[in-house]
């Protein structure tokens, strides 16, 4: 027995000795996580970066910022991807992308903590101790590095022709836009300004959030809620989220948003940060859009959101976008309004900033601005412009635009105690709010009395035949019958959401259509409208791209 026990003990000891290194190896991480910069130089390929599973946290104009441990770095080297290490222990702290446009900005950052210039106008910032969020100098725009992996944008294709025509002005939406008034906008700005400060860590900001909650609630929307989140370690704040649920496509969501928190230099921001232009102006336009649209039935769900803690690094929108993505919400488009009321010269134009995947949204905005502002707007496709609440939506692969008065900013009161209502230009402010409401209404599609219902259940399927040199392609479309429709129109575009061309000469009597004017390699977007007995045409159906086959669990149209 003693011999047996001894033998067992020896075996156990031997097992431990043999197993320990294995266990250690399994538990050993790939070393400290570093922040690396991957330049978009010769040989850069977004596809290769994706294939290597690089943990990209921010895309900039000429480079990517990614987190990589030693194993990741070895994989990058093996694959010939050039990179440089910016911070060897980045995994342990919060990092900020900061707009540092001048040597003075960079010097101010370096006085406040550690800063590395990443590319012209952009630095990465952190502190060894204390809150980096609070250490960033007040005048500099910043974004907390994304908490999740982001997908680098593919290079935008060179335009092959003129931009598709925006839809003509809709008289009903013109009427809605006309209900936006300077007095109403100014009243909201004044209310927010009267909180003295809306710096996100203060009770005044919390009170401003409650005032917005009450204002949205008074409009009779379908839902108003707070979304609470933590930021910069120990602080909490609340987004205010109001919803008007769509009657036709309730699960498809358009968002109009603005941040309601404010800031000013560190000596005053806890007590005095009026933030009229930045960003009571955007918040007022969101509230005004809710006021005008609240009485109307809409095809799509619209969420009116006032974000908090934007000035700390976009924490409110980051929490919201991450939650939406995690919940699998179908956010079809985001309109972010940030500083839309200061004009350095009249006529002022509005800058619309998008990433390549959201370019269609900017094209629509330009049309809406001309129709409903009226207002001149300029489109900029720049995935590296990340210093407002649209950016977390880009990070979570939702289309989003930023509307802002100037890029670079010209407002001399920016982030100062002098950013007050008296410095705003009311005509420009009103036109900006009307244009934004016009775009939102075009997207959400108000349901008009007397018009046929919006067609639903649109499906499209490719049918392609190939020989060695030729192909014969058709697209078969089918949709659900609309009780009050006398016929249907089918529209097609080669770009999403605009530039539709009607394919049928006379209204289609059935609920199917075959498009034989396509080529197999083309990308097409289809919508269908219903035509009533008196010729009135409904809103557009949901847009669809033809699939190679019917998806098994997709809703199939009923038999005729």
């Amino acid at each position, binding site marked *: 027995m003693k011999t047996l026990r001894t033998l067992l003990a020896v075996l156990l000891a031997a097992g431990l000795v043999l197993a320990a290194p294995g266990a250690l190896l399994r538990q050993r991480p790939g070393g400290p996580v570093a922040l690396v910069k991957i330049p978009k130089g010769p040989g850069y390929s977004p596809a290769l970066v994706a294939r290597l599973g690089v943990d990209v946290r921010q895309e900039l104009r000429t480079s990517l910022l990614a987190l990589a441990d030693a194993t990741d770095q070895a994989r990058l080297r093996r694959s010939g991807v050039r990179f440089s290490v910016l911070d060897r222990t980045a995994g342990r702290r919060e990092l900020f992308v900061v707009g540092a446009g001048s040597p003075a900005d960079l010097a101010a950052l370096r006085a406040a903590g550690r800063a590395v210039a990443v590319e012209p106008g952009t630095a990465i910032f952190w502190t060894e101790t204390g809150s980096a969020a609070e250490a960033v100098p007040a005048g500099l725009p910043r974004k907390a590095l994304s908490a999740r992996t982001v997908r680098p944008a593919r290079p935008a294709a060179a335009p092959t022709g003129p931009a598709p025509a925006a839809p003509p002005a809709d008289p009903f939406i013109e009427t809605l836009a006309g209900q936006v008034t300077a007095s109403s906008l100014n009243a909201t700005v004044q209310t927010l300004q009267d909180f003295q400060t809306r710096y996100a860590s203060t009770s005044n900001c919390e009170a401003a959030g409650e005032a917005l909650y009450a204002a949205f609630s008074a409009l009779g929307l379908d839902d108003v809620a707070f979304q609470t989140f933590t930021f910069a370690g120990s602080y909490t704040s609340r987004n205010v989220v109001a919803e008007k649920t769509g009657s036709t496509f309730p699960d498809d969501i358009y968002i109009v948003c603005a941040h309601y928190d404010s800031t000013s230099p560190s000596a005053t921001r806890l007590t005095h940060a009026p933030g009229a232009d930045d960003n009571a102006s955007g918040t007022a336009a969101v509230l005004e859009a809710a006021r005008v649209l609240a009485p109307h039935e809409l095809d799509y769900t619209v969420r009116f959101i006032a974000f908090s803690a934007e000035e700390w690094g976009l924490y409110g929108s980051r929490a919201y976008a991450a939650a939406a993505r995690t919940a699998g919400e179908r956010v079809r488009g985001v309109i972010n309004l940030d500083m839309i009321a200061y004009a350095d010269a009249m006529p002022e134009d509005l800058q619309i900033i998008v990433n390549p995947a959201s370019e269609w949204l900017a094209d629509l905005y330009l049309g809406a601005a001309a129709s409903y502002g009226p207002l001149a707007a300029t489109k900029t496709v720049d995935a590296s412009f990340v210093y407002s609440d649209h950016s977390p939506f880009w990070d979570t692969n939702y289309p989003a635009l930023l509307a802002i008065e100037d890029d670079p900013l010209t407002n001399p009161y920016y982030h100062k105690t002098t950013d007050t209502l008296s410095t705003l230009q009311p005509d420009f402010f009103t036109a900006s709010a009307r244009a934004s409401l016009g775009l939102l209404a075009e997207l959400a599609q108000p349901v008009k009395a007397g018009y046929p219902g919006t067609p639903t259940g649109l499906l499209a399927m490719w049918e392609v*035949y*190939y*020989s*060695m*040199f030729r192909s014969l392609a058709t697209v078969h479309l089918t949709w659900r019958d609309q009780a009050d429709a006398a016929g249907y129109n089918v529209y097609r575009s080669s770009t999403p959401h605009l530039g539709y061309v009607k394919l049928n000469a006379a209204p289609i009597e059935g609920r199917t259509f075959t498009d034989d004017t396509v080529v197999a390699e083309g990308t097409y977007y289809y919508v269908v409208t219903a035509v009533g007995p008196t010729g009135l045409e409904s809103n557009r159906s949901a847009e669809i791209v033809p699939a190679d086959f019917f998806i098994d669990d997709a809703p199939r149209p009923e038999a005729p």
Partner: protein
Amino acid sequence: MKRRAALLGLAGALALGLVTSAKAQSLSVSAAGGGMFPSNGLYRDIYGRSLALAGDLWLDLRGPFGFTAGFSALSDDGVALGPDDLYDVKLTRRTVPVVAYGRFGVGPVTVRAGAGLAFHRVEETWRTVDLGFTGTKTAPRFLLGASVRLIGRLSFTAYATYDPLHMKEDPYASSVDVGGLTAVAGLAWRIF
């Protein structure tokens, strides 16, 4: 392209004439039939294997070299790939090759291996729809064959050719491989 084909034919005829008058050892004519095994999977899916017919002149020089030139035709019927078998398609290929080869003989058997150029004209048509393609291309050709003397001037001949034939409609289109390995067998008659 027609000019190129004419030049190629002229050059082949000239070369044959020169060597016939100077250093020719023997000249044979052959007729053979067989099949083509396409390199391209899409080709196989649409057309399967092809029927090929060929007629060639074989000029053996004094020494271990020679030339061959001729004409071959290939014709295929198939069905366009798609959800249903709706569209019948047809592909034809006419080829004029000129190939230089090396040879060696063992008893009644002569083995030939060589390389050269072949001018191809490819035509694809959809029988019930107004769709089609016609193109020409000069491409390399590789040859491996053998012949066995039977009786008198008559021989059995068999050879395989490999044609990498990538064609495209215009410079911006992606190329389509309609080449492959062709194997034929038939009879040859020695003229002198």
